[in-house]
């Protein structure tokens, strides 16, 4: 029993901390209270290197959610990873991950952010390569290196922030806003956040990271790690307002939302579909953030964390029961076998779609209403509403494939719905994904948003959702002529299907040049010119001259002696003759 108890102990403490954080959140929220702790490591030349901790309602609430999800996920992995030999390693990695996430959340100082940020990258790398196959190896490398770009940018931000004499950015963000260094910094921060949150040039890693075990996907790649970038931008929100680069971010994140929504419709891997929907929601958060509404982004981040973790955990149950099969083409009609899991799955799917009065509704509807209230151009508006429709589209397609369609599994199967550990842990998140939306809506908005729209505009969300639902139903039953339709626009289809070729571009498209350059350098400089001009070249020259002098000294000394004697005699005689 020693083996499984690690799960229970970690679950217990994380859950406890989560509750404590919740009460502290309430307290901090009422009194509008902020605690700022600083521990000075060193101070010299008017620079001080401090480790600082910021506790306000935002960090406490986010911590509460992270701890809650991680506790539940750890409890869940007691059953999911029960046949795993290295369960201890797994749980410890997850705990380390939670630790670095908490470090990231509570730090208002760019150096201590780096502490959590780097830790997140490294631990998530370890978690992605937890399984030992080549797929996860490649996925881990892609994940870690994409995240490392963000780390490098944060490192650079540390330098630029040195210009202000301290790394506590909160103190002078307002005052130095129009400084050009601040502009540069904000660009770097945005790029760093984009790598962590997988926005468009860097979004290849998120679906690839699905090679991790499913509890990890539930915790890391849906709710916490990927929202770290969003959280960073929420913290830097004041700095970023009204910047030109923010408009580019709006465009990129809108495109991410759109792209992920489209590719999720083509994807057949169960986890990748959910990953792509995460990507789409991240795009939503980023884009609303880039319009300056940080609280809304935070709200959606929290509710999204709940139902996305639940969705992944349901997917985990299904994968677990199907003997690691993730392809939804093998699935169908499983609601007959596993009703509870299907129930949870549908609830989370609907919360994702924004069906009224589930968690996703409150945040998503508010975001879309605010978008409609904002002064925006038509293109962004188009992206938002198409993506909302697409969310409904792929969610319904997924539900259809899993629950409604014909039973399509291998001939030997064992579907059962009596794994109480998994069900219990999912129950917590199920309740949260029903109630957390309205709960947070009441809690975190001290200043309610006023929305006043024409009826058709207000119902636009419902229209696109219904349309998406219809499309989702249709595509899941588009059977007989599918191939003809697919091959009719084969190039376009594969372009959309493979995430606009981004996975290929960010692996094969990049590594060739650098690896080739490295090999060229090794051949031509290390083994070539450097060697020629120093070690081996010197050796060759010395050898040549040594042989040459040896020729005089050793082998032929009699001949040379004779020869020089004769030569000198001749010269002497000649001189004599001349004289």
């Amino acid at each position, binding site marked *: 029993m020693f083996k499984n108890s690690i799960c229970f102990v970690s679950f217990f403490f994380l859950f406890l901390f989560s509750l404590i954080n919740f009460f502290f959140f309430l307290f901090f929220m009422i009194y509008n209270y902020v605690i700022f702790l600083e521990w000075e*490591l*060193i101070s*010299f*030349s008017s620079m001080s*290197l401090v480790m600082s901790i910021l506790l306000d309602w935002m960090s406490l609430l986010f911590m509460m959610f992270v701890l809650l999800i991680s506790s539940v996920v750890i409890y869940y992995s007691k059953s999911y990873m029960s046949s795993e030999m*290295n369960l201890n*390693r797994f749980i410890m990695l997850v705990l380390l991950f939670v630790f670095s996430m908490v470090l990231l959340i509570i730090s208002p100082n760019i*150096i201590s952010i*780096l*502490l959590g940020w*780097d*830790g997140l990258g*490294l631990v998530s*790398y*370890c978690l992605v*390569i937890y399984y*030992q*196959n*080549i797929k996860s*190896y490649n996925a*881990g*490398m892609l994940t*870690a*290196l994409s995240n*490392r*770009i963000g*780390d*490098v*940018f944060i*490192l*650079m931000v*540390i*330098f*630029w922030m*040195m210009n202000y004499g301290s790394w506590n950015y909160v103190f002078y963000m307002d005052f130095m806003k129009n400084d050009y260094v601040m502009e540069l910094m904000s660009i770097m921060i945005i790029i760093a956040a984009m790598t962590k949150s997988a926005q468009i040039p860097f979004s290849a890693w998120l679906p690839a990271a699905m090679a991790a075990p499913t509890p990890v996907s539930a915790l890391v790649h849906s709710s916490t790690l990927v929202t770290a970038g969003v959280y960073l931008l929420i913290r830097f929100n004041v700095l970023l307002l009204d910047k030109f680069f923010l408009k580019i971010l709006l465009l990129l994140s809108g495109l991410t939302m759109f792209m992920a929504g489209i590719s999720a419709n083509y994807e057949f891997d169960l986890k990748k579909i959910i990953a792509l929907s995460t990507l789409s929601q991240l795009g939503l958060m980023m884009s609303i953030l880039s319009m300056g509404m940080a609280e809304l982004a935070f709200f959606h981040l929290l509710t999204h964390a709940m139902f996305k973790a639940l969705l992944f955990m349901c997917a985990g149950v299904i994968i677990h029961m199907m003997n690691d099969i993730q392809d939804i083409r093998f699935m169908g009609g499983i609601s007959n076998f596993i009703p509870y899991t299907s129930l949870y799955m549908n609830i989370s799917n609907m919360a994702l779609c924004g069906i009224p009065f589930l968690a996703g509704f409150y945040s998503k509807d508010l975001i879309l209403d605010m978008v409609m209230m904002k002064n925006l151009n038509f293109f962004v508006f188009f992206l938002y509403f198409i993506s909302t429709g697409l969310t409904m589209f792929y969610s319904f397609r997924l539900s259809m494939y899993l629950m409604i369609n014909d039973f399509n599994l291998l001939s030997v199967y064992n579907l059962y719905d009596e794994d109480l550990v998994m069900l219990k842990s999912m129950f917590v998140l199920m309740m949260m994904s029903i109630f957390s939306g309205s709960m947070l809506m009441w809690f975190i908005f001290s200043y309610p948003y006023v929305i006043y729209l024409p009826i058709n505009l207000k119902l636009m969300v419902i229209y696109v959702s219904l349309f998406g639902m219809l499309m989702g139903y249709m595509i899941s039953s588009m059977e007989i002529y599918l191939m003809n339709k697919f091959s009719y626009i084969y190039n376009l289809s594969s372009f959309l299907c493979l995430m606009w070729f981004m996975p290929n571009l960010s692996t094969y498209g990049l590594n060739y040049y*650098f*690896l080739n*350059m*490295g*090999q060229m*350098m*090794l051949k031509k*400089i*290390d083994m070539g010119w*450097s*060697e020629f001009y*120093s*070690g081996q070249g*010197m050796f060759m020259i010395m050898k040549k001259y040594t042989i040459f002098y040896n020729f005089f000294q050793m082998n032929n000394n009699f001949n040379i002696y004779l020869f020089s004697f004769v030569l000198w005699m001749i010269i002497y005689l000649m001189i004599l003759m001349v004289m």
Partner: protein
Amino acid sequence: MMKFLMLMIFTIPLCFKKNMFWMVQNMLFLMFFMFMNLMIDILYYCNLSYVFSCDILSYGLILLSIWICILMVLASENLFKMNFYYNFFMLNLLLLLIMLFMTFSVMNLFLFYLFFESSLIFTLLLIIGWGYQPERIQAGVYLLFYTLFASLPLLMGIFYVYYKMNYMMMYFMKFFSFELYLLYISMIFAFLVKMPMYFIHLWLPKAHVEAPVSGSMVLAGIMLKLGGYGLLRVFILFQKIGLKMNIIFIVISLLGGFYLSLKCFCQIDIKSLIAYSSVVHMSMVIGGIMTMNYWGFLGSYILMIGHGLCSSGMFCLANINYERLHSRSLYINKGMMMLMPSMSMWWFLMLSSNMAAPPSLNLLGEISLINSLLKWSYFTMIMLMFISFFSAAYCLYLYSYIQHGGGYLGIYSFYMGLSREYLLLLLHWLPLNILVLKVDYFMIWF
């Protein structure tokens, strides 16, 4: 300071007694703790006795060298077990330590040169005597002649400095300044070879590949730092000319760091990869010193200490694998996580420290170096970003290539990690990550 010297000298007879292997190490530990309690005034040279003295710079490096020597003993237990001339090994080690101690603690420039060069002899003996393959002769020759070739101009330079200053105390060097190109080159070139700078780094991978574990440890841990120490000392003389000329070396080091980090991907030998990665770090150190500002100096100092502990630990890890599989090839060292899961954790910790993950000293050093280099010129940002990115990339490459996936199963015999080895790694890793909490000792200088 004399007491430490006497302690080391009178430990020498202990080497020749049988089975006193661990006793010598204990003596070194004793010395380490004695030295740690030395009262160090932060701002000045202190503990003066004869030519010896100690300021914060030499204090840290002496501590590092004693520590690395202790760990070298711990790492080469196999010599003791196999009875492979361990008496002479210990003698060699102690003499090397004496030389290093003197190098770091003398105040006289010429004596510094003398001990700087003589420490080379013992490293050479270590490589040639206890290396594994016949190629070690060539590697030893590379090591010797690369460093010797550049150090003779240094000797001339020191004599010239003496001729002009009439004095050789390092402390008084700050009252002089020379603006002579030839002197500048001749004074720093020996240290650049020792560091090593790009283009003259060839001796390092060769020496590392051929050296025994203790040789690799001392090479990566201390010998490279001799160069940095020398640069930090002599640059007081060349402040003015340095501002004109340093751009050459900074550019070479940064570009070289980038290329070297790409070259790491082409290595198939674990030790060679680690050696190349330490050249990358050293190139950043050179850059930091050459910017001639405070951040650069302290950053290079911190990175030297951090890198000394970290790369030495990685060589230990490489050796642990080598002792079990008798190969350093990346193709054979595979799937080690399956066989030694706990060692895999140590690999990860060491490699993550090497790629400057928090909270290691390397991160602090790298931040300071980035600060100094970017203050020097904003264009260095591109190269620094590349170096920082690729250093992470090759560390992860090394880690997952060795640890991940199915194993090489043609193993005849195998054994798990010994507690000695875990202790060894812990003693590398702990100072590396704990010292961040007390960075006063690195950051507050003159």
